[in-house]
């Protein structure tokens, strides 16, 4: 599913990943933890095909990410939730989710149902649907952005701090969502400071430090 060997990635000239060896099997749920700046975000972006590895090998969903075309091909199949929500301020919640669903290649009609379903599952009530995003709270934005991801049904979920900035209910929703993804046979990599929370979902914890895998409960 995901296999990295001695993967090095640079941000500008800074070696954010200094040689990562990691293997994740299909259907697995992996928790990434580590100090700030350990490389969690970079690792997730690397697996999503947004970064080119400087050296080493990265294979995700059978794509060799050392080449540009393969990186482009893998992007469509993974779902990355990053720090920014990727929403357009001036469009409504429904328009945003629908736009991202259609960009992902889903047809317009079934996606409307899915959009509503996904939003409800995330605890966003119908009243919010026609509100422009700039009127939402941070938590509501994050849920909207998650909804846009859920609608796409990715094969590999890469969740970067999905609990950050959410209230108790919101964090519960995220857990439900991860549970759904796992139940549907998806593979989930999630970075989080909410150790207890995610540990109940996943027995495997990978600790990053200094841009490399410091500890792996599976190893």
């Amino acid at each position, binding site marked *: 599913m995901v296999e990295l060997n001695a993967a090095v990635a640079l941000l500008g000239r800074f070696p954010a990943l200094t040689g990562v060896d990691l293997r994740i099997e299909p259907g697995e749920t992996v928790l990434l933890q580590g100090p700030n700046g350990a490389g969690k975000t970079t690792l997730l972006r690397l697996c999503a095909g947004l970064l080119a590895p400087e050296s080493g090998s990265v294979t995700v969903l059978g794509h060799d990410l050392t080449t540009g075309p393969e990186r482009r091909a893998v992007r469509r199949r993974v779902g990355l939730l*990053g720090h920014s929500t990727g929403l357009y301020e001036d*469009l409504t919640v429904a328009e945003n989710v629908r736009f991202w669903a259609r960009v992902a290649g889903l047809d317009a009609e079934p996606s409307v149902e899915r959009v509503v379903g996904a939003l409800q599952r995330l605890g966003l009530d119908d009243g919010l649907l026609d509100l422009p995003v700039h009127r939402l709270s941070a938590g509501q934005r994050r849920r909207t952005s998650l909804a*846009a991801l859920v609608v796409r049904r990715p094969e590999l979920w890469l969740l970067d701090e999905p609990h950050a900035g959410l209230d108790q209910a919101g964090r519960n929703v995220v857990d439900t969502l991860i549970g759904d993804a796992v139940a549907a046979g998806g593979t989930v990599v999630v970075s989080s400071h909410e150790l207890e929370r995610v540990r109940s979902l996943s027995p495997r914890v990978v600790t990053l430090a200094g841009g490399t895998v410091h500890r792996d409960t599976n190893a």
Partner: protein
Amino acid sequence: MNRFLADARLVAAKDLRIEARSRVVLNQVAPFALLVLVLFGFALDADQRTLRAFAPGLFWVAVLLCALLAVQRSVSVEQADGALTGLRLSGMSPAALFVGKAAAVFVQLVVLEVLLTAGIIVLYGSEIEQPLLLVATGVLAAVAVACTGTLYGALASGLGVRETLLPILLLPVLAPVLIGATRAFDDALGNAAVDGWAWLGLLAVFAVVATAGGALAHGALVEE
């Protein structure tokens, strides 16, 4: 190909919808365009004959200044909250994204041109002698500016405070458009005995090269 056009249309519609909601171009750039016309009037001493003689040049300088703002707005829409990352993750072809973004800028430029045309008629006393030439010039120049601007917007994006680079990068490249469109307008407004249609040919070449080249080159820039 269908997929390409559908993606491009999706992006263009999204940008235009954002503009319809936020009205940044309509409420900020359009008044600026008219302001530029008025400022030229002050600077050139409010002699309507002079203004009329220079109307085509002033018109296109105003269009270029507005285009800079429109392109910057088009870039910032994607940059504000990491939407560009989402677009890259969608696997959409960079060429389709380019065409979509450029099309939205094009529509906004055409609206601004209509407004500016009204402006030079009212303020400078210009008279349209060849409407067809005028429209064709406006459309082709808008294509050329929108495509070049969108490509250079992608180039200058993500530089943080250094995004002020856009004008110095973009304006020299657009020199032929400025010259060509001004001369064609000279003919269309009956200002000078030049062959406006020949200039239109130059604009057409520029527009075609900018569209094709931009679509090709955009991949190399968005891929980052």
